[in-house]
């Protein structure tokens, strides 16, 4: 329901800067995922929005009302955490109705709210069962029900699926989004799993070293990463090549890689700039090598390694510009290790070459 603004928030723990001037606007009814490597400050940001920790500087607004000093219990948030944290000494029903009870509602209202959320989430487990008798997935479902029973305006999810097994996590992932949209909540979901974030979020926030690296829709992040870090973090693997802008015609440019391969693409960088070229493994096409390699953005190479990934196959191809990782749909065409191939780079992203060096620019820490 509300629109959440985080304005210029700083937080440090001792000598570690956890948040370094973070600004974020989450719109009413939006499902936003915050992703980033561990230690990037994503959980700290969530805790500041929740009111569990106080920022050193900066403010949090819900619907333009400053809530920075409002205690946790008055913010109207629902929280679901990685550790689930169902009250172990209470049965399911008492867990779910904890919030209406402690808000001092009447008996009938408490029972109604309890039944309502149990129905909403289609929970069929025995109400008298204790948390330890359920699977992790079921427990997290109850924890979600408990949070929803507090009639929250905002749902804050801190790695809610990280402690579940892959199957339960995938099932609950879509359920979460469905629920949030159905109830019209604003949800902020912290995760380190980029696939999870891309598949359910309206917008994704990528954080790194206490700063927001990029905010955008999943598609924007995937196709137009603003930094080398984002291009590697989204998707998990990326190929990086070094080169310079050889020629420029308006926005069109020819990039010459270190060992002479020329790529036609677009960039706003001026002629002569030192650039970093990022290519996703799935944006490289492998072909049988014919006698002559011609055409734009073509390279030749030899298959060095091959891994089976289910729907696709991952190849490592040795070329004169270095080893490239290629991911291809299985079934169309297949190559043997040692086979000579031609590669076509379909989509490349050009960055100004990072001053701190490639490794530092894409490092998780």
């Amino acid at each position, binding site marked *: 329901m509300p629109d959440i603004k985080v304005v210029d928030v700083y937080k440090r723990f001792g000598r570690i800067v956890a948040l370094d001037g973070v600004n974020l606007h989450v719109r009413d009814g939006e499902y936003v995922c915050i992703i980033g490597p561990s230690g990037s400050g994503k959980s700290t940001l969530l805790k500041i929005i929740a009111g569990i920790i106080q920022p050193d500087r900066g403010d949090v607004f819900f619907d333009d009302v400053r809530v920075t000093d409002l205690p946790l219990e008055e913010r109207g948030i629902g929280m679901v955490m990685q550790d689930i944290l169902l009250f172990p*000494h209470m049965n399911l029903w008492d867990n779910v109705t*904890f919030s209406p*009870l402690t808000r*001092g509602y009447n*008996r009938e209202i408490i029972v109604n709210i309890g039944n309502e959320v149990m129905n909403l989430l289609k929970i069929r487990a025995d109400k008298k069962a204790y948390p330890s008798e359920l699977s992790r997935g079921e427990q997290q479902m109850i924890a979600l029900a408990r949070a929803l029973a507090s009639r929250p305006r905002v749902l804050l999810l801190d790695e809610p699926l990280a402690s579940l097994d892959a199957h339960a996590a995938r099932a609950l992932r879509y359920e979460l989004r469905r629920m949030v949209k159905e109830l019209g909540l604003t949800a902020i979901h912290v995760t380190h799993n980029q696939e999870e974030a891309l598949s359910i979020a309206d917008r994704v926030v990528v954080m790194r070293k206490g700063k927001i690296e990029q905010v955008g829709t999943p598609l924007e992040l995937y196709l137009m990463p603003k930094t080398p870090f984002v291009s590697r973090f989204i998707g998990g693997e990326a190929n990086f090549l070094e080169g310079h802008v050889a020629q420029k015609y308006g926005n069109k440019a020819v990039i010459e890689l270190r060992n002479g391969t020329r790529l036609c693409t677009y960039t706003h960088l001026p002629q002569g700039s030192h650039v970093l070229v990022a290519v996703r493994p799935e944006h490289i096409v492998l072909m049988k090598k014919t006698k002559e390699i011609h055409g734009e953005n073509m390279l030749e190479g030899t298959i060095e390694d091959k891994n089976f990934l289910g729907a696709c196959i991952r190849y490592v191809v040795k070329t004169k510009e270095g080893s490239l990782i290629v991911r291809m749909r299985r079934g169309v065409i297949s190559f043997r290790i040692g086979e000579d191939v031609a590669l076509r780079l379909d989509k490349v992203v050009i960055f100004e070459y990072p001053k701190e060096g490639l490794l530092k620019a894409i490092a998780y820490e």
Partner: protein
Amino acid sequence: MLRRSFLHNVLLALGAISLLTVLVFLPSFYLLTFIFTRWDEIYNEIFAHPLIGDTYWKEIGRYLSLSLRLALTTILIDLIIGVPLAYLLSRGSFPGKSLLEDLTMLPLVIPTSGFGFATMLAWTASYGLPAILGFDIKVDTLVPMVNVPLLMLIIHVALTFPYVVKTVCGALRDIGKSYEIIASSLGSKPITTFRKITMPLIVPSLLSGLVLAFARSLGETGATMIVAGVSTTAPIAVVKWEFENKLAPAAFLGALLVGISLAIIVPIEYLASSSRRARRLIPLGVEVLLVRWERKAPGRLRLFRDIISLLSIALLVLLPIAVLAYNAMIYWRQDPYTGRMEGGILYQLYGPARYIDVIAKSMMTSLIVSSLATLISTYVAMISIPVIARSGYGRLLRIMLKVPLVIPTSALGLAMILLWGPRGLGLVPPGLWLIVLTHVVFSVPVIVETGLASYFETNLPLYEDTARSLGATPYDVMETITIPMIRRGIIAGSLLAFTHSLGETGATFIVMGDHTTVSTLIVNLVESLAIPASIFASLVLILTSIVFIVIIRHLIE
């Protein structure tokens, strides 16, 4: 290879178990069996004495009644001041927190007789706190309703509340803040959260803390003797009868004390380790009203909690030590009231009475006893820890090791003398060695507990298995992996045991024969009204222990 290591294991286990049995378990159980083997004697003395009939039985009833009332009142107050203090220590963050923590644990390690004397001074002396506040406390001032001597109650609370604080603090730290955060995110007020979430989760630990406190209060001898006046508690009666050579009533009462302690501890330990499920005790309708009342309750409770905590530490721990130090100052040269030099500490120490010699000698005895006892106990504990940690019957051993921690010390002393002394096996006469053996009984469990804690903390079984897989024999594993890794835990435990031993009074009194340790000396000095000398000896003893506490703290950090 396999058979050799199997043999090693069996030998180690057998060695550990037999050492534990002979040195630690045997005495307490011997006292219990004593009742059955000598039942005729006991019956004729206690229930049907030809001259005095069942006088002893009536006396036993009276003493036990006082001890039980005292122990129950004590744990009630422990509960009231212990829980808020534990909450403050585990949840709060403020400057001086670790100092406050040390102060809380102080009564567990400082010598009870010295501390008892300091408490008596603080609460009864004409310049003590009550006098300043305008009311009068004497050793025979009774608490209304329960009719226990006030001074005794104060000292028992001071000596037992750390047990409650320690266990509850541990539990609060274990469960962490997460449940509380979730509860407040669900809209619960702090007081409701405490009642419905935190409290039920810490109940098992609270219970075991209270049981420890109860047993400790039931068995407290050293400090109680000093503030007893005309009242006699059960442990004091055991000492008294033993001195009067009335063995039958002493043994019977001692066995009753052991029995009561066990009867309370075993079921509650069992309860504490069983499920954490709370039944709804309050009907929903009432609960709703209660919650509404809690929502209106003022947010000042935090302040209330802090005040209770700080006040209890100040009154129970700081005040006695401060008053003792102050007294040492004003009594240094002369009696401050009469001005007579004979009433000063210096005169008593170096005058014709030459108390300095007595104090120095008993200090020497104390140090020898404590060192020997700690050394032997550390050795036994080091052998036992791997056995307890890794074998199936380890849990049973661990529960049995709680027994020496809770049996009344005077009963323990009696058991030792009955078992080893001239009337029993006749192997060890009362004196230095019997004191050492007695102290070993309660030192081993202390060291084993801290050692086990660091054993599991460091995830040692994993490293041990790794070493075994690399071909090390069990003995090599113990020497190169186990002991080095739990060294700090063992050293801390040993120092704790050392301070316990230094301050032990009740059991020592019974088994010491002609030797005197400094903590028993203080009781004697107080009883012979050599107040300045007692002040000096108490202060020396307390300061020594504080030095040890600082060292322990340093080692644990």
